[in-house]
């Protein structure tokens, strides 16, 4: 693996210089939880850091953001599109989350109607990835075909080597520009990536998974999952590949804004129509929708599984509903 070798303190100085004028979004600890937050610049992770509870998704697809502003004057309305981006660096993104961003990129860029607000913000973002040297207790990336040292959507990748030493490699034009400004020798370094904590016993190959699930569309296992589901939406909020959103108007008397916000297919009103008809009226259909979207519908549409094995659903769902649990229930054992 060809990298530039650099000491940690020099690396932080170099990154800070390259990212001048940009917002720095980095892992930060708030009480017990790590999340991605705006800070002065890049940081060195403490040895026990694995990944953030809340990934960087919200800095590309905010939890809530205006998409336009409107103002009524008499019977006429004027509309101004929102300018919701600032140049930013998102630093320290793990490969599972980098893969998730690559998936979001392909979804938001999909024809016939690319989602320009996301794509604009994305185009003004530099992603600095951090390869994994140690796994958290719930990681299962390799089971989903994701590798803990792969760059995916990253512009630059950092590989922690021995002690204070890091290897850095570039994977895009802006990444190469930045790397050119780093003093240091090009070297061939051996990086030993983390081994994910979990290796899922998959019922079938990843390629056959969509068909395997479609054959189980009416399986009673879905209902057993639904009995446990609290319909809280937490899985969707923490999942790095969940992107479903809602749109609504926030009116302040004659003027206001149209807002886009994170929604979740597991929430009761998600697909309920005005007038009451709901194609997914109970938790059973909604739990099934979430899993099927990730493992069957999206692969049928865009050829890729919408799970990167980050392990957050395993770690944080209070009722233990997650992809491995679903596959186990549908597979027959565990009934």
């Amino acid at each position: 693996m060809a990298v530039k070798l650099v000491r940690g303190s020099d690396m932080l100085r170099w990154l800070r210089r390259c990212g001048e004028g940009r917002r720095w979004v980095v892992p930060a600890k708030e009480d017990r939880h790590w999340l991605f937050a705006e800070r002065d610049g890049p940081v060195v992770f403490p040895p026990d850091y694995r990944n953030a509870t809340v990934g960087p998704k919200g800095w590309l697809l905010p939890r809530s953001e205006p998409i336009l502003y409107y103002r009524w004057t008499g019977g006429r309305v004027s509309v101004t599109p929102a300018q919701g981006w600032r140049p930013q660096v998102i630093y320290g993104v793990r490969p599972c989350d980098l893969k998730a961003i690559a998936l979001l990129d392909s979804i938001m860029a999909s024809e016939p109607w690319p989602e320009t607000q996301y794509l604009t913000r994305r185009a003004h973002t530099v992603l600095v990835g951090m390869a994994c040297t140690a796994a958290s207790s719930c990681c299962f990336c390799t089971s989903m075909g994701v590798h803990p040292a792969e760059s995916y959507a990253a512009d630059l990748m950092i590989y922690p080597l021995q002690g204070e030493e890091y290897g850095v490699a570039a994977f895009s034009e802006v990444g190469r520009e930045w790397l050119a400004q780093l003093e240091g020798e090009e070297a061939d370094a051996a990086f030993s990536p983390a081994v994910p904590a979990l290796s899922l016993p998959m019922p079938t190959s990843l390629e056959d998974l969509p068909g395997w699930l479609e054959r189980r569309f009416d399986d009673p296992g879905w209902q057993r999952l639904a009995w446990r589901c609290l319909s809280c939406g937490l899985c969707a909020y923490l999942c790095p590949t969940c992107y479903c959103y809602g749109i609504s108007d926030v009116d302040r008397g004659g003027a206001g804004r149209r807002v886009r916000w994170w929604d979740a297919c597991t929430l009761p009103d998600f697909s309920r129509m005005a007038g009451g008809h709901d194609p997914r009226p109970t938790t059973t259909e909604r739990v099934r929708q979430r899993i099927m979207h990730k493992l069957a519908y999206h692969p049928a549409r865009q050829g890729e599984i919408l799970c990167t094995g980050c392990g957050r659903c395993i770690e944080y769902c209070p009722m233990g509903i997650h992809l491995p649990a679903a596959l186990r229930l549908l597979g027959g054992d565990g009934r």
Partner: protein
Amino acid sequence: MEVRPETASGDIKTLRVRLPEEDRFSFRPGQCAMLSVFGVGECMISISSPPTRPEELEFSVKRVGRVTAALHELEPGECIGIRGPYGNGFPVEELRGKGLLVVAGGIGLAPLRSLVNYVVDRREEYGPMRIVYGARTPQDLCFKEEIFRSWPGVPQVEVHLTVDQGDEEWTGPVGLVPSFLEELAPSPEGVVALTCGPPIMIKFVLEALQNLGFDDHQVLTTLELKMQCGIGKCGRCNIGSRYVCVDGPVFSLKELRQMPAEY
């Protein structure tokens, strides 16, 4: 903009919208647009006027929720937001030269009305057109001027009306659309059937068409699910791997059979 009631109860109204010349867009019959009442919200409504009459767009809206109620309350001359056109629409090129059987219930005639008037305006390009339309009562039939007067006068167009329940003035057939359709027994020979209506009506119309000998590929339906973005991104209008807003709303019965019954 004008707002015209379609039904006696006023639960369905047609908005007639004049777009500034620079904002006009071309579309296919069966496509939809997102209508905005800024401050209330947006909803997806099919364009019920044909692309052959581009000066004004018409949207027929049933009052079912907040946004549709706000659309109903608009005064002539007021502004709405329109974005679109969205969805695939009817395959008007493939339908050329074929006979058409249009089967609709209630407000379900709105998306099909765009196709009917498109065919009326390009009459020589299509075969005979039969329209089978029903509503709960005579008062609930939409587009009365067209169904009673203008369409029956067009060459090779037949209009068959039915109501679930008649009134003192109604002398026409009484009965549900699916059974009325089976009584009419139209031949499937060289014909494509297009249907839209309440979900339960669609279900039985599809069965009736099958009984009449229509193949799955000869039957098209147009669906409606909750939509918010209209561009295949917000994730709520999927039926299996298909999004109604970009892959639909028009699906053949052949396609529907390969999709989960979540609609």
